[in-house]
């Protein structure tokens, strides 16, 4: 029963996220031009809704008592990831490359989807606090990075069944995964800026502008403003996972055994 409800919670919050992602396209198609007074607060409502669904997921994940070990491990890994940003300054990388995604994916992969989600949200939150980059886009970032970590945990279930070439299969899957999330992250975060760049539906409104045309517009917007940027992030993720992945997975797996070792005294 518990599992079913928590599954429902995941699905609902994912649905809110997906709706936040696609609604500008539908809204453009269905809105009447005179609704202009209300369209302007649409981005605010979206940010609030995404924030609420992040909160709900956090409550759900936290409800099952987080042990001291998880808390300590999370804290340290988040700190480590924030420090990793020094690579960013030491080796100049173009575009939207940021070294925080590879650790999120790797940690989610080794420690499971729940840990991955927490790692993703907290990493973004902590680095927003440290670098001073917080803003109304933060819920989107936390949500997206959290899902990246969570889905990485699911990935482990697939690769664990592979036999002889497990390590190389693991690496290839993780690389593909990092690449995909590099692009996806950009596409999702852009949606926050989209209503600003394109204007609220009513004012950039074209008579008879259909769903497909709006999607085409978003495609153009994406290709013009962020494809190159996001490509740098995706390629950077692959490079980091190729480079650090095997060693990190090995170290984390070893520590996982040590961390979740428990003595159960006789009652």
């Amino acid at each position, binding site marked *: 029963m518990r599992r079913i409800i928590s599954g429902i919670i995941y699905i609902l919050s994912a649905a809110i996220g997906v*709706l936040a992602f696609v609604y500008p396209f539908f809204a453009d198609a269905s809105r009447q031009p005179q609704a202009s007074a209300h369209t302007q607060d649409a981005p605010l409502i979206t940010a609030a809704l995404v924030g*609420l669904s992040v909160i*709900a997921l956090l409550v759900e994940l936290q409800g099952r008592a987080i042990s*001291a070990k998880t808390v300590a491990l999370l804290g*340290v*890994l988040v700190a480590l990831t924030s420090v990793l940003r020094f690579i960013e300054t030491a080796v100049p990388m173009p575009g939207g490359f940021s070294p925080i995604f590879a650790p999120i994916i790797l940690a989610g992969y080794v420690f499971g989807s729940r840990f991955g989600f927490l790692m993703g949200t907290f990493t973004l939150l902590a680095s927003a*606090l440290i670098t001073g980059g917080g803003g109304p886009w933060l819920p989107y970032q936390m949500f997206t990075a959290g899902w990246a970590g969570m889905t990485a945990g699911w990935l482990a279930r697939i690769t664990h069944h592979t036999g002889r070439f497990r390590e190389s299969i693991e690496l290839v899957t993780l690389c593909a995964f990092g690449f995909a999330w590099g692009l996806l992250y950009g596409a999702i975060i852009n949606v926050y800026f989209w209503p600003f760049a394109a204007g609220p539906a009513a004012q950039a409104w074209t008579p008879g502008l259909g769903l497909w045309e709006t999607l085409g517009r978003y495609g153009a917007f994406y290709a013009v403003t962020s494809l190159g940027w996001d490509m740098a992030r995706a390629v950077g993720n692959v490079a980091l996972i190729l480079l650090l992945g095997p060693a990190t997975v090995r170290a984390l797996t070893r520590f996982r055994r040590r961390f979740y070792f428990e003595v159960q005294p006789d009652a």
Partner: protein
Amino acid sequence: MLDARAWLLWALAVLVTASSTRNPLYVVLVLLIAAAVELACTPRRRAVSHRRAASARRALPSAFRFGAVAVPLATVFNGLTVHFGETVLFRLPAWLPLLGGPVTLEACVYGAINGLTLTAIFSGFSTFNRVTPARDLVRLTPRAFHEAGVVLSIALTFVPQMTRSLSRIREAQAVRGHRVRGLRDWLPIFVPLLISGLERALGLAEAMVARGYGAISDQAHSLRAQALLALGLLALLLGWLATLFLPQWRMAGIGGMIAGAGLIGGLLWQAGRSVAHTTYRTRRWTARESLAVLGCAVTLAVLLAPLPLADRETLYYSPYPHLALPPFDPVIGLGILGLLVPALAAKAEEPQPDD
């Protein structure tokens, strides 16, 4: 310095103000206010850390740098893709998908206004981040997220330590003849950093358990609370869908969203009550904070409430179909000035030496 809660309210007020208008005059006013507040309130640190001081000095340019990218980008994009307006600058051949057609002055102006709005929001939040220390922000985490607050505090505490051990490892490797030339050379630095960090996490976890962390709070929350959470999310989702796609159900949809948000908030409050929480040094909510909040409230009231004096139509400036000077209503302008109050309130206590 003001309470972090007051600053958070201020940042939200800036967000609401900037996103509830497309009139460039008001947006520019908001931008100026954010810059003024930042100049007035950025704490002068007594050499706590050089990096912080450096970042504080860089503060103003960061919003400007953002604007320097956002405004031209939005101008060009909107200008090229929206073919409205009467003042045609030039025409692109019609066979180009999406881009083809007249490029108008109005569309470019509208794009620029969008960019400005985005810059105003950004500068509001960058000011907020400058004037409130990260520690105070961590203390804002609701009590229900007690563990989350602990994780954040650990992370913030460990960052300087990690930085130090990073440089120590680099030195050690340099002594052994290792040099960082490319990305590949980071592996011998990263692995020791990771492993020493994990060791430290183990030690920390044991210390926390030894001090009784998690000894009582291991009750998972009840099935009922979980079901209510799911219900709250469902109400949010359905309410939102209704407001988006079914105009006749709009009111019911808004009600559903409010009910869902209330349900989730109530659960949070309920969960927070079970966490015993003590603070070492309490920050008091003084008259200054109330004054600052009052200023923000005046702004929001002028913008959102249907007051008889303010001409709210001026908020919805649109350059289409023909470019005209944006209207300016002095009452709304004065209302927006309410956002300046926190700067004055924060300045008022300046002479008193703080801890």
